[in-house]
């Protein structure tokens, strides 16, 4: 075996293979940095090019990309407060406050260094595990997989911030959003509001960008200055590495969590960063700084999300069943290359497996190095006035959201969820539980149903189930031991809010949403409504309770919260920027995305940034060129408007 490992290394480092890996790494970092585009988008982009390439080069290209997406996406999460891809959502919670405080350099170096370690850990696990993992993976039946989703949902406890009730409601809302669409068991269309778009369910990219990015962009636009309160990146590069080494235990544990979550088919790697983050908060002695810029809150998700790739490749290679979204596409790539994933691959082509592993490890090191090298330039974005940054961000987010299913529904859903996120932020409804609920909804429902169908109620007494249940209870206990006082997400003070009407209205709106869910679900067969209906009913009761507290509760109750009540009067209103979003939407619906966006750019830069005409023209032109370039290189479409339906337009305006 050792000689195979050695010859695989020589293979990876020889000839053009290294070059292809670098290309993969470069594309991976780029899609990672661009908000909303992640491993799935990157893999889809590269896939058409691998046909006819030699096997090792093609593997180097794909794995190079797969390895570093969760390294590159850190930039956006830390510097902009926007998830660079689904893998780095939890990094925002502490990374972004650090950047605002002027500690961007420290946060980034800690993130890159721990990403690298996590990635290498994943590669090591894959090396040892790939030969023996089969029985381990087979030991997780639908019952154990269901319990793992429950363990994931238990993380909501520490991610709820000051109000546990709101955290649960937010999680319930996320679950219900995840249940939208054709029921996995029967195909009945639940909660679809009569829209065909919703039948397939909401895409994760759209929900993540809507709930995190849109509110953040609007908030920054309202403040209208640079993101970083301190003008520089700070000098914490070495500090970040020291932090990582000091907290080696967190890095090691979270890498392990990342690997495990990655290796479970159907759980989806996108929950690994949250599980790692939640777990770290639970075990921390001093929780007071989480959500306000605790470096441990950066180390945990970053070491986990890079380790996911190593874990996710285990079932991909062993069973031909992907462990995450991007490995699903990687699997298709393998088949295109004429490689048949499955147990035979590991038994007969072990050299290929070790080529993949070496590429994974080396790409992680190179990716982290490149990130450190380009950081000073990327980080300057945080010192620009935000009115110049915002239209670019909106452009990329709209474009990325549309790539989810190439449907106008993507953009409408993005804005609807964005507005929801805006109000959740304002009224102190924590958003991480919503994402956790959303990500786990499908797995929870599917696996619960399958466990009952396959095993009857006997599934409850399986040893694996009991063990995971015990871990869940311990983790809940550990999280609550310190009184759940950590202020993850939405910082800011509650209490002493005089005018409670706005938040009452929002809570009533939530009640109405849950009520709608109950009414809609009642129509369907038991298999399509069991778990969703239970969630909706509990959520309705919870919302009723919350409304009661807001109406009558003492002013110090943590439930009562409204940032607007204390907002400085000189801040522009949120409605104004929602108006800008609507304007972009309307212009694109009429004239198509490219023309609509150009008009939006020119108008926004003129009125909001008060840019001089020449600069305005230059920026608008570069935005259009960027879009055209993206669409050309990656063969991507833009949303079409009314104009395009009536008149045949020349590229790129069609």
């Amino acid at each position: 075996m050792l000689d195979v490992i050695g010859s695989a290394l020589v293979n990876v480092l020889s000839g053009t293979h290294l070059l292809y890996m670098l290309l993969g790494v470069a594309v991976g970092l780029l899609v990672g940095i661009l908000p909303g585009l992640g491993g799935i988008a990157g893999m889809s982009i590269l896939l058409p090019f691998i046909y006819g390439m030699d096997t090792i080069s093609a593997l180097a290209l794909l794995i190079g990309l797969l390895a570093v997406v969760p390294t590159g996406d850190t930039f956006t999460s830390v510097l902009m407060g926007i998830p660079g891809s689904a893998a780095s959502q939890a990094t925002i919670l502490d990374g972004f406050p650090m950047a605002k405080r002027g500690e961007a350099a420290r946060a980034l170096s800690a993130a890159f260094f721990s990403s690298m370690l996590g990635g290498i850990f994943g590669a090591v696990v894959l090396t040892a595990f790939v030969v023996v993992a089969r029985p381990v993976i087979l030991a997780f039946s639908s019952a154990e997989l269901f319990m793992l989703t429950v363990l994931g949902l238990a993380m909501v406890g520490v991610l709820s911030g000051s109000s546990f009730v709101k955290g649960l409601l937010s999680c319930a809302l996320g679950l219900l959003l995840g249940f939208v669409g054709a029921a996995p068991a029967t195909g009945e269309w639940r909660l679809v509001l009569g829209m065909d778009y919703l039948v397939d369910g909401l895409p994760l990219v759209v929900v993540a960008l809507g709930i995190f990015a849109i509110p953040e962009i609007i908030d920054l636009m309202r403040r209208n200055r640079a993101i970083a309160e301190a003008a520089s990146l700070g000098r914490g590069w070495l500090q970040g590495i020291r932090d990582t080494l000091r907290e080696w235990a967190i890095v090691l544990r979270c890498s392990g969590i990342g690997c495990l979550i990655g290796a479970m088919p159907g759980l989806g790697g996108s929950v690994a960063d949250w599980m790692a983050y939640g777990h770290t908060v639970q075990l921390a002695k001093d929780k007071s700084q989480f959500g306000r810029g605790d470096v441990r809150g950066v180390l945990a998700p970053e070491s986990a999300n890079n380790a996911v790739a190593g874990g996710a490749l285990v079932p991909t290679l062993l069973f031909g069943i992907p462990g995450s979204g991007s490995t699903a596409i990687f699997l298709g790539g393998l088949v295109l290359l004429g490689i048949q994933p499955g147990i035979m691959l590991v038994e007969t082509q072990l050299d290929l497996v070790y080529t993949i592993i070496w590429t994974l490890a080396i790409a992680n090191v190179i990716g982290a190095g490149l990130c450190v090298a380009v950081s000073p330039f990327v980080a300057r974005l945080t010192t620009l006035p935000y009115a110049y940054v915002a239209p670019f961000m909106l452009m990329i987010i709209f474009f990325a959201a549309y790539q989810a299913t190439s449907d106008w529904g993507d953009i409408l859903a993005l804005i609807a969820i964005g507005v929801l996120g805006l109000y959740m932020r304002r009224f102190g409804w924590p958003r991480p539980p919503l994402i956790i609920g959303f990500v786990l909804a499908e797995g929870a429902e599917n696996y619960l149903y399958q466990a009952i169908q396959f095993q009857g109620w006997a599934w409850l007494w399986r040893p694996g189930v009991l063990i995971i249940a015990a871990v869940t209870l311990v983790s809940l206990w550990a999280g609550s031991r310190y009184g759940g006082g950590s202020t993850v997400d939405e910082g800011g003070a509650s209490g002493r809010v005089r005018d409670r009407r706005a938040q009452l209205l929002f809570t009533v709106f939530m009640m109405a949403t849950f009520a709608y869910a109950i009414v809609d679900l009642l129509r369907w067969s038991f298999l399509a409504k069991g778990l969703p209906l239970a969630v909706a009913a509990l959520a309705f009761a919870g919302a009723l309770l919350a409304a009661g507290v807001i109406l009558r509760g003492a002013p110090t109750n943590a439930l009562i919260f409204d940032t607007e009540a204390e907002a400085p009067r000189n801040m522009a209103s949120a409605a104004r920027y929602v108006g800008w979003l609507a304007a972009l939407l309307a212009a694109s619906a009429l004239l198509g995305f490219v023309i609509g966006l150009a008009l939006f750019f020119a108008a926004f830069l003129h009125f909001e940034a008060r840019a001089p005409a020449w600069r305005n023209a230059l920026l608008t032109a570069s935005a259009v060129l960027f879009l055209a370039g993206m669409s050309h290189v990656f063969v991507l479409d833009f949303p079409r408007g009314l104009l395009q339906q009536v008149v045949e337009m020349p590229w790129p305006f069609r």
Partner: protein
Amino acid sequence: MRNRALRSLGAAVIGVALAAVALAPAQAGAADFQGKTVEFVVPFPTAGGSDVWARFFAPFLAEELPGKPTVVVKNAPGGGSITGTNQYVQRARPDGLSILGTSGSTQLPYLLDDARVRYELKELVPVLVSPTGGVVYVNPELGAKDARDIGKLRGRKMKYGSQGPTSLDLVPVLAFEIMGLDVDPVFGLARGPARLAYERGESLIDYQTSSAYLRNVVPLIKAGKAVPLFSWGVLNDKGEFTRDPTFPDLPHFAEAYEMAYGKKPSGTAYEAYKAFVVAGFAAQKPIFLPKGTPQDVVDTYVKALDRVVKRPDFKEKAGKELGDYEQAVGPAARQAMRVALGIDPEAKAWVKDWLTRRFQVKFDKK
């Protein structure tokens, strides 16, 4: 073997000669694609079975179409392929620059009158059909050694992982029903996870399509963890089922039925099964041109695809990726689609009624 090779060589020579003759006017006419880009629309996500199939064909097609155009695969996923197909039918122009690759998952909702379907498959022009097959296998602990022992399985409750009652997996569930097996499908499992559930011992009976079977089930059989019972079989020129060339040692469904019960299967249920197994497997992946495509463009495609499937390098790679199946081109493709889409109204009504009875599927009145 030698005979077959000679015959296909001969056919190839004739094909090339025919093409050469046909090409002379074609090049002067509309069907020259030099400098053009052909969009190969696949209404499924990247890296799925249909996507891999289309990407496999694309480079060959690009080389064989006159003028060597660029062929790009474009995924338009959603609604289990209904959304993308609707969109294609609405938007594609009959100029040969936009072709569609569908699958059994597109044909089944069409046959079952799904309300979302806004495409009339009979109006599209099929130029190629790729068949595939599938094999049913069971857990050896049930005691069956081959199809003759199917009778022994009667009365045994068996779980089966299925995508959903109206998905492609309705074919196997129907087959189990006709076989008289007591199979209880657990819905919501794609083929991969369903196989994993089988390996974990959660389900006792399963099937996989040809390529996945060769890749992942054959090792299980060798390890004594699975027993193959029968394949779906393929249709011959006369529209009769014969053994699947990829699995010549396995009986096809009707044969297995006869081995188990000593008579041929018959009745409305069997008629319905035949129609759906063709739409789902024997004519699984067609390439379509839009409605109203001019004859010269259709001919150009048929000839190009004919050359593709006769290329030795295509055959070599296809055996590994698509299984050992005869690709139906031109008239054969039209014939296959006619069988696949021309379901007898009585059989269709029976299937709908059966789905409602057994799985409470509700059908909208059309």
